[in-house]
């Protein structure tokens, strides 16, 4: 059994007071406890940015803090080297939807068995508030051209995930602990590529997407009676970029995952498998004239 004490942070948290990431960290800890998977079988992977520091604030869990935009390929390698592990990725909108968008789409297409948690706040926080690919059109920051602000529409991680082939796609909100924990547990347990777009305010830089804004502009998809197996309905909801954000599970289906198509050993982890030199000798001898 995993206890809160086991997960105590190994080092002091450096996020700003009131940061949306605190809610995600709290939910993650609760989810890990609720999952009840042996702790040594968990692996947290992250990219770069405030989101990605999360794994230094949860103790006792294997983790790997990787490169900007690249946590998903690293996590893919970890997962396939040992499919007994439960691999999840923490990434930000700046991380996952800019440099990482190609990897994100391809991992969804491959239906890699992992859960990806996007800490989405519409800004590149750690580099001091530039607009991220998730910032709304017209968002003003130091690097968006004045006067119109960001002269482009944001990436919709939900729509990208659904069209690319992810099999579990949901949106959570850092301010809704109960709902977020539930989504996280479901995402981790899901066999396939699971994405949660987690709305979270950057209290320092983003004056638009605030706690108040999210509280007022989110609504529960479940309460509206949404069919999670209908891809087009899910996409329609994902494209709702207007005044109100649906929260909850958009899409949840089963499809063969990547590992089922890779030459992994029938028993045990790939990392523990040893090629028999006799087989190699036979391959060489068969090449002999």
């Amino acid at each position, binding site marked *: 059994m995993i206890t809160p004490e086991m997960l105590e942070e190994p080092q002091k948290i450096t996020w700003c007071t009131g940061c949306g990431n605190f809610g995600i960290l709290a939910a993650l800890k609760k989810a890990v406890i609720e999952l009840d998977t042996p702790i040594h079988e968990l692996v947290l992977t992250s990219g770069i940015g405030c989101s990605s520091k999360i794994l230094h604030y949860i103790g006792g869990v294997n983790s790997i803090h990787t490169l900007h935009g690249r946590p998903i390929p690293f996590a893919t390698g*970890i997962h396939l080297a*040992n499919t007994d592990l439960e691999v999840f990725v923490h990434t930000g909108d700046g991380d996952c939807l800019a440099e990482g968008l190609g990897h994100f789409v391809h991992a969804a297409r491959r239906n890699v068995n992992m859960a990806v948690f996007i800490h989405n706040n519409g800004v590149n926080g750690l580099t001091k508030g530039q607009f991220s690919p998730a910032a709304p059109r017209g968002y003003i920051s130091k690097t968006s051209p004045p006067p119109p602000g960001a002269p482009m529409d944001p990436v919709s991680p939900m729509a990208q995930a659904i069209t690319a082939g992810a099999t579990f796609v949901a949106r959570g909100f850092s301010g809704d602990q109960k709902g977020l924990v539930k989504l996280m547990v479901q995402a981790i347990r899901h066999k396939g590529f699971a994405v949660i777009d987690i709305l979270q305010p950057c209290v320092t830089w983003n004056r638009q997407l605030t706690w108040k804004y999210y509280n007022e502009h989110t609504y529960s998809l479940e309460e509206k009676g949404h069919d999670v197996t209908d891809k087009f309905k899910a996409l329609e909801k994902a494209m709702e970029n207007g005044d109100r954000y649906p929260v909850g599970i958009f899409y949840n289906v089963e499809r063969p995952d990547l590992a089922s198509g890779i030459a992994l050993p029938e028993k045990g982890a*790939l990392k523990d498998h040893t090629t028999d030199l006799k087989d190699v000798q036979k391959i060489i001898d068969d090449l002999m004239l």
Partner: protein
Amino acid sequence: MDITFNIGGAAGQGIDTIGDLLTQVFVQAGFYTFTIKDFESRIRGGYNFTQIRVSDKPIYASVDEVDVIIALSKDAVVGKRDNLSEGGVIIFDEGIEFDDLEACHFPAPLEKTAREVGGNIRMMNAAALGAVIAVINFPFDLVEQVLADIFGRKGEKIVAGNVAVAKALYDLTKSDFTGTCKYNLETLEKGPSNDKLILTGNKALALGAIAANVKWISSYPMSPSTSVFEDIVTYSHQLKIGSIQTEDEISSLAMAIGASYAGARSMVTTSGGGFSLMVEALGYGAMIEAPVVIYNAQRPGPSTGLPTRTEQADLLFMAFSSQGEFPRIMFAPKDPIEAFDVATRSFNLADKFQIPVMVLGDQYLADSVMNIPRIDVSGVKRDVGKLAKPGPDPDYKRHLLTDDGISPRAFPGDKGKTVVSAGNVHREDGHITEDAEMRALMVQKFMNKIPAIMADLNPPKIYGEEKADITLLTWGSTWGAAYEAVQSLASRGVSINQLHFCDVYPLRTVKLREVFAQAKQVIAVEQNITSQFAQLVRMQTGLEVTQHINKYDGRPMTPQWIISELEEGGIV
């Protein structure tokens, strides 16, 4: 006997098939072969050739002069005319419209005979073989025997058909071909070679990797590296090797490092352009001390360059790629035998020192074919390096500071241990820090590995006389051309030898200093324009070569080319 055959034609015409057959015939008959592939970056058409050198003595390079050309297209009839030796022959199908006939030309009914005698146009290969054998007066019974061995698996009918077609062309050539070839091998018996493993450098690397227990490969196709990836994927089902063709090379190396962090021996294959994309992840791998093997089959750059041709111009790029300072090992195997050996050493040293190991091949090594002795894998050692003691250890630290800089590895999934790594500067437990003292300690930790790395690398080798007035300084695949040039010049009485590096980085300098002190002239011979290895030598030792010989047209060096460069430079 030292004959070179050139089979030329358009891509897709079956040059390789004829080439493979010729190679197999001569290998089976006991000869040494060395084959190069010269092809354009296109799927169909153009002018490509396979050039097979055959000798009764060991050979290590391709040569410029060709003795027999088999031309499958008009381009090929004229393409190598200038390289044809005196008394050489150009055989081509009579269907090719070519009117400027000289004594060396032999229009032969290759296709017609294949169809009429063999009943199968694919037996054109045997027809070409028959013609070739006839012009060099090679004993036909030897060929017959060899064809039976080669096609034996396909059944008697195929053997009989091929033999009949070859014989028909053989006889026809004997009676119709009025020119003469300088070779008359009528009395030739089986050659002395028992080397029956026909391999490219790439294939040898792939075999080395599987023998070394590679369990993960993630790559993106890029000439001339791709066949390593393809071969390993081919074996993956049988041997259980995880593999993915990734969306790009960034992902390739990231996945491989992820798999390595989780405990699987991992590699990527690419060429310079792909490696350019891997550079950030290379430094990441070094930072988290994840063993990984990177194969770069070099081709001429910059940018797309010449995708199917050869160069050695990524040496300095690879030696210094990625920001920051960290140890790495670089190998440049000279031939398929060494490529196999380098592959197994690479995985062991990557694990032992928990660093990236890079193998630099090039198109010449990648695609050239040699027949070598059977590789016996029973001697292959697998050393996974320092591992943490099994069992729970709440104090386990993945990046523990140690005297030799190497921290025992554990993997996620090991019960009772937490394995944490980060690309940021980190503490011993893997969690990030900005502490000045820890930063310095971690950098020193990396560098503390270097003395032991140096001790594990092989020193360079002298080929030829131990001491000589002139020393050719070489690395990687140009070894063979330089080796034969040295042999040839030494036989003329020139005081010349060769100092060759396979383990190119970090640089072992003891032998270098000895040679520089002793030789009157040290000549850098490199397949690039700036003598990158010589630059590395100067940077690390202050020693400067006397002259440079550089080739950078994308075509491989030959012994004759090196000799004429030495002559033109007034060196010999």
